[in-house]
């Protein structure tokens, strides 16, 4: 018989991890945030215009335009999946939102009588119930995103198709549908409530661009969901070890479908916000944005192998991309360098993390 260890529990053999070796400080997100701060300092010296309020607002607005979708993709990446269809979903949701808005705001169109009537002068269109048109159009846009997310999730979680292939197919399908429904022309919001949409998407609240505020609210919500709910715990577990998750009774299929739906909804919302700012939803809107979104998530520390990532990293990645773009312009460097630089940063960020885990 082996002698059982009779000692009470002590930690004589097991060292305690130092605070700087674990958690945020040891994560890729931490390093990239450090790099970002350094970049701010350098830019401040390189261009006096960089830290002005106007430019900071500009930066905040621009990165908010991809950051909400990046939050969604980060969910998917944490489970070890990928979603390439976000760019197409952005466009399609925006397009459906403005098409529905136009349709139900035009007297004489089928269904429009529930939403609008003509004023006594016979020309001015008046909403029957203020806000209803806006609400219905946004819900329509998010509705198509929801459907795309469900189809992605079903194909990946239930049918077992690879996330890359499924969402690559969906990228093409949804982009194609956008061209079909608008006949290649895209669409733009019109009617009595189009101005509400513009106000919601490109307005300024307390000196901050509205999209930035949505982003902060959603990021905080995401942090709480990921770290303080059973669902968030299961998302990390599926990404860390899917088989273990299934054996311990986690509903893996449901979790996977849910994260693809969340991702598509985030992309849809992002698309609607962009189209509000642009004032239209052209059929080629947000083309190849999926690459920026995934790049931002990966730079911020989301691991494509699954199991790691978070909202702070997603935002840090987006800010870094935008500051580089902005910085190149301010430094009067040929802005065509941007793409090359972004590529270098993606590899560098992952490389630093790799070197660190080798040394640890």
């Amino acid at each position, binding site marked *: *018989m*082996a*002698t*059982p*260890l*009779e*000692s*009470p*529990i*002590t*930690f*004589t*053999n*097991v060292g*305690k*991890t130092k605070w700087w070796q*674990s958690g945020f400080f040891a994560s890729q997100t931490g390093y990239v945030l450090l790099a970002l701060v350094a970049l701010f300092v350098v830019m401040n010296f390189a261009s006096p215009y960089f830290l002005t309020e106007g430019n900071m607002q500009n930066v905040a607005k621009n990165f908010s335009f991809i950051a909400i979708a990046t939050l969604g993709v980060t969910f998917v990446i944490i489970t070890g999946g990928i979603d390439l269809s976000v760019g197409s979903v952005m466009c399609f949701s925006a397009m459906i939102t403005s098409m529905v808005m136009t349709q139900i705001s035009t007297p004489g169109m089928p269904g429009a009588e529930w939403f609008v009537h003509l004023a006594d002068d016979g020309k001015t269109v008046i909403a029957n119930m203020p806000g209803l048109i806006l609400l219905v159009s946004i819900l329509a846009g998010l509705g198509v995103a929801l459907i795309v997310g469900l189809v992605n999730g079903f194909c990946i979680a239930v049918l077992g198709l690879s996330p890359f292939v499924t969402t690559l197919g969906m990228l093409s399908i949804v982009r194609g549908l956008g061209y079909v429904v608008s006949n290649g022309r895209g669409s733009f919001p019109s009617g009595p409530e189009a101005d509400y949409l513009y106000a919601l998407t490109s307005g300024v609240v307390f000196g901050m661009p509205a999209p930035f505020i949505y982003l902060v609210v959603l990021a905080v919500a995401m942090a*709480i969901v990921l*770290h*303080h*709910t*059973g669902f968030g*715990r*299961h998302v*990390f*577990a599926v*990404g*860390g*070890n899917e*088989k*273990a*998750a299934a*054996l*311990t*009774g*986690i509903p893996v299929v449901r979790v996977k479908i849910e994260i693809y739906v969340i991702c598509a909804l985030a992309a849809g919302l992002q698309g609607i916000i962009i189209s509000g700012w642009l004032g239209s939803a052209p059929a080629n809107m947000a083309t190849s944005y999926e690459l920026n979104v995934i790049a931002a998530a990966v730079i911020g520390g989301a691991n494509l192998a699954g*199991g*790691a990532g978070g909202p702070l990293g997603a935002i840090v990645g987006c800010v870094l991309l935008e500051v580089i773009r902005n910085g190149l312009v301010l430094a009067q460097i040929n802005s065509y360098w941007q793409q090359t630089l972004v590529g270098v940063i993606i590899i560098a960020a992952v490389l630093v993390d790799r070197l660190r885990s080798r040394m640890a």
Partner: protein
Amino acid sequence: MVTPHDAGLAVLELKGIGKDFGAIRALHGVDLRVSPGEVVGLMGDNGAGKSTLVKIIAGNFPPSHGEIRFDGKPVHFARPIDARAVGIEVVYQDLALADNLTAAANVFLGRELKRKLGPFAFLDHKAMAARALELFGELRSETRPHDLVKQMSGGQRQAVAIARTRLSNAKLVMMDEPTAAISVRQVEQVLSLIHRLKEQGVAVMLISHRMPDVFAVCDRVVVMRRGEKRADKAIGDTSPEEVTSLITGAREAA
């Protein structure tokens, strides 16, 4: 050793368990009794029917013939969760741990403790860490609830996987090759973990190829060969040589 007072009361009782996969007879007429606090070694060569038997007990699939009684009552498991509900826990060979999560998170995986806050339920991190520390203490394992499993030794990982089985006060823990892939020192740790379970009255079925481990911790050894139980002996009445010959078929039965 089987103590006289619990000899009469079996936690698990199998009667004539058989399993056919199409024309292949994987298991035939297996009878087995396991008492509370008893450690039973289940040995046999590859294809002897060990894992089929374990999977039937764990609820992965139903037996084709025979009856399973647990705590004296006949049971039928449609899914592994049903087996877990009556008190059967399995420590899988690969431990089923998520490396990116903490020890406490892994212990409670799929069974997280939550606190209600209005319509929302949030993870109760404190309660889970406290309970996990308690369980590691019971298992005498130097494992911190907040450490990531990624950074742990093989023995600690085993402790996390075994602590999981203690959450629900399981009555039977089946361990599939727990010592197959770890260092000598860690094997000692795992064997002492099995002792802890035994002390607390938990029945343990140890599926192993390693003769020294089985003879170190088991009260009884059951040898399977070609889908049948060939021997079921108290550890004091047999020897590694005899068990080896039973496994290989050099001796037909004992």
